C-alpha cells in the first residue's frame, strides 16, 4: 500500500486534467461548479481511500459522477452510464490542421475517447473512468473513432 500523499500534491498534479474532462462533459460554463464538487467529494473521502496507486483514475470516476449529477439537476434526460453529453470536448490548445474539426464531427463517445486520449493524454483505464464505461468499451470507442478519422482525413 502506498501512503496517501498530501492532498495538495494531488490537486497540483491532476486539477488541470479533471478540469479538462469536466469542460468536455458539462461545458465550460458549468465545469467550475463540477470541479469544486469533484474535489470536495474527493477530499471528503480521501482519508479512507485504500491505496494511492491510481489517484487520477479515482478522481476521474468522481468527476464522471458529478457530471451526471449536474445533467440530472439541470433536468436533462438522465444519462445512461456509458453515455457522454452532446457538448463537444474542448481541447485547450489543439494543434489544428483539420484534425480536431474532424474529431468534433465524431459521435459523442468516440469524440470523447479520442479527445481524452490525444487531447488530455489519458490511458485507457482513465478514459474508461472518465466516461463511466469499461476499459474495453473505452478502447473500442477510441479504436472506432480513430478508424473513422483515418477514413475522413484520407
Amino acid at each position, binding site marked *: 500500500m502506498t*501512503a*496517501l*500523499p*498530501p*492532498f*495538495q*500534491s494531488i*490537486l497540483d498534479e491532476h*486539477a*488541470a486534467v479533471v*478540469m479538462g474532462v469536466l469542460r468536455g462533459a458539462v461545458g465550460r460554463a458549468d465545469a*467550475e461548479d463540477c*470541479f*469544486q464538487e469533484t*474535489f*470536495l467529494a474527493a*477530499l*471528503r473521502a*480521501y*482519508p479512507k481511500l485504500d491505496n494511492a496507486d491510481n489517484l487520477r483514475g479515482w478522481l476521474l470516476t468522481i468527476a464522471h459522477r458529478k457530471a451526471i449529477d449536474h445533467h440530472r439537476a439541470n433536468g436533462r434526460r438522465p444519462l445512461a452510464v456509458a453515455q457522454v453529453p452532446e457538448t463537444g470536448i474542448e481541447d485547450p490548445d489543439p494543434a489544428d490542421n483539420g484534425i480536431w474539426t474532424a474529431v468534433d464531427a465524431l459521435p459523442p463517445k468516440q469524440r470523447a475517447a479520442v479527445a481524452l486520449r490525444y487531447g488530455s493524454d489519458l490511458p485507457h483505464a482513465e478514459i474508461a473512468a472518465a466516461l463511466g464505461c469499461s476499459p474495453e468499451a473505452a478502447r473500442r470507442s477510441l479504436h472506432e473513432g480513430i478508424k473513422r478519422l483515418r477514413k475522413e482525413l484520407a
Partner: protein
Amino acid sequence: MKTSLDRLTERAAAEGLLDVAYANVDSPFGQLLLAATPRGLVRVNLPNYDPEETLEELAAKVSPRVLEAPAKFERARRELDLYFEGKLTEFDLPIDWQLTHGFRGKVQRAIKRIPYGQTRTYTEMARSAGNERAVRAAGTACGSNPIPIVVPCHRVLRSGGGLGGYGGGLPMKEELLRLEGVL
C-alpha cells in the same frame, strides 16, 4: 485556475475538510513552511529541511487532507516578520501540540514559556519538565521540537555556556540569540 483552487480551499475549510493548512513564509534565513490544524500551529519547517518531506510526514501523522492555504497564516506571517525585525517579543499564536508526547511534550511546553532574550540550560529544562536527571532526554526534546522559533528552543543552551545544537544549524541559533540581545 488559481481562483478556482482558492475557492476550493475556502470551501474545504468551511466544511471542516481542511485538516492541515500550510503556507510558505519568507524569513531572513530562507523559506519557512508553516502548518496549522484548526486548533493551531502544529509544525514549523526550517529552511534546511525539505518541505516536501515535512508535508508527507504531516499527511501520515496528522491527516492526508493537507492543503496550501496562505490566507490562514496572515497573523503568523505578521508576527514572524515583526519578530525578525526585533519588534515582537512574544508570539500570540494558538499551538496544536499533537506532534509531541510524554516527557518531550513537557519539555517543549516548558520551552514555550522561556521569556524573550533569556536562556536556559538543558538541565534546567529537564528539571522544569519534572525530571532533573533526564538531561539527555531534554536535549532530544529540544532537537525534536516540531514548532521551532515560535517554541523557542534556540533559547536552550548547554550548562557550560556552550551553544548546544540547533535543527536549523548553529549559525541560525547564534543569529536568533543575537537578535534577542543574548549574544
